[in-house]
């Protein structure tokens, strides 16, 4: 016996320590986080939209909207887009498992859906980038 420490040492040899997570545990953790984020967004969204009834002729709402289309908020929209994509696609993945599809290849299914998510996110980035840079494309 080398030593006996009677103190509570930091125990990282536990399945709750992220280094010990496997694919499914990460998928589930991010599903929870993105779910909470989307719920928070939804509440904000309802507050913002319902503010259109305040003030006369929607003047305040116009002001608010012009604030929310500033580059900073447009960049935040990209975060929202990422959360929506992740939550949707991982949700479909879990539904497929419930339907008996792909349970034995869950990691492949996960990374397949993540590839779709990345492509869709990049598409969103390409669409919103001119607006962030303050150069909205001219419409014919």
């Amino acid at each position, binding site marked *: *016996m*080398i*030593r*006996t*420490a*009677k*103190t*509570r*040492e930091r*125990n990282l*040899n*536990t*399945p*709750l*320590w992220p*280094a*010990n997570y*496997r*694919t*499914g*545990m990460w*998928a*589930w953790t991010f599903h929870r986080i993105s779910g909470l984020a989307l719920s928070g967004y939804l509440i904000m969204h309802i507050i913002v939209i319902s503010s259109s009834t305040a003030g006369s002729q929607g003047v305040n709402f116009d002001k608010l909207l012009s604030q929310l289309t500033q580059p900073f908020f447009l960049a935040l929209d990209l975060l929202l887009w990422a959360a929506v994509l992740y939550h949707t696609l991982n949700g479909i993945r*879990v539904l497929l*498992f*419930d*339907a*008996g599809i792909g*349970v*034995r290849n*869950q990691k492949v299914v996960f990374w397949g859906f993540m590839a779709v998510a990345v492509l869709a996110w990049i598409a969103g980035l390409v669409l919103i980038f001119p607006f962030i840079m303050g150069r909205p494309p001219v419409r014919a």
Partner: protein
Amino acid sequence: MPQDSAIFKIQRYDPEVDTLPYFTTYNVSLRKGMTVLDGLLDILDQQDGSLAFRASCRGAVCGSDSMYINGAFRLACNTAIVPLLPREITINPLPYMRIVKDLVVDMDPFWTAYERIKPYLINPETAPERERYQSPKDRKHIDEMLDCILCASCYSSCPMVWSDSEFLGPAAFLKAYRFVGDSRDQGQRERIKAVGHENGVWRCHTVFNCTEACPKKINVTWSIEALKRRSIVNRLKFWQR
């Protein structure tokens, strides 16, 4: 040059004496082909007679010595030491289960859940003189579930078990499907009833920790998903209620 000794870092806890668990470190000299269980037995034999752990068959059949070793659920008897080196070998008891002493955990909740799914043949028909016949194809269908040795690795790995003491846990579901999918069994309805509720399969969040934890490489989640579908079909058959 191969290492001739390994460091074992083992979580110790005696609820009657200690207020908190702590780690004790042992230096184990290696022999060829040694498993973690061999190391534990050496420690018990030569260094510290107070170390408590469960083990019986040494051949990955009894499921007594499942532990949390270096970030994974493993059977100590089925885990060679050499591939784990040069890291020290950190051993914890099955996580989130009540510790009786050191690596020995209270398995009562696990067995209670197992009992709830009626893990025995239900078939009111009189048994034929020789055997209840089952075709090789039907037998193959439950092959995977029969491999389970009830080591509780999956049970201890499941986040739903950690958070809900009423949840039956993956092993019980796997064994439930072992009978539900068995062509000789007729207790499907009662078993589906025993698992098809809020604290049954529907608490499962498809985290796949059970499948990752299984030392027998059983896809536990597959059985749980199959039970979910059976449960729905059973609910839809209103004329049978």
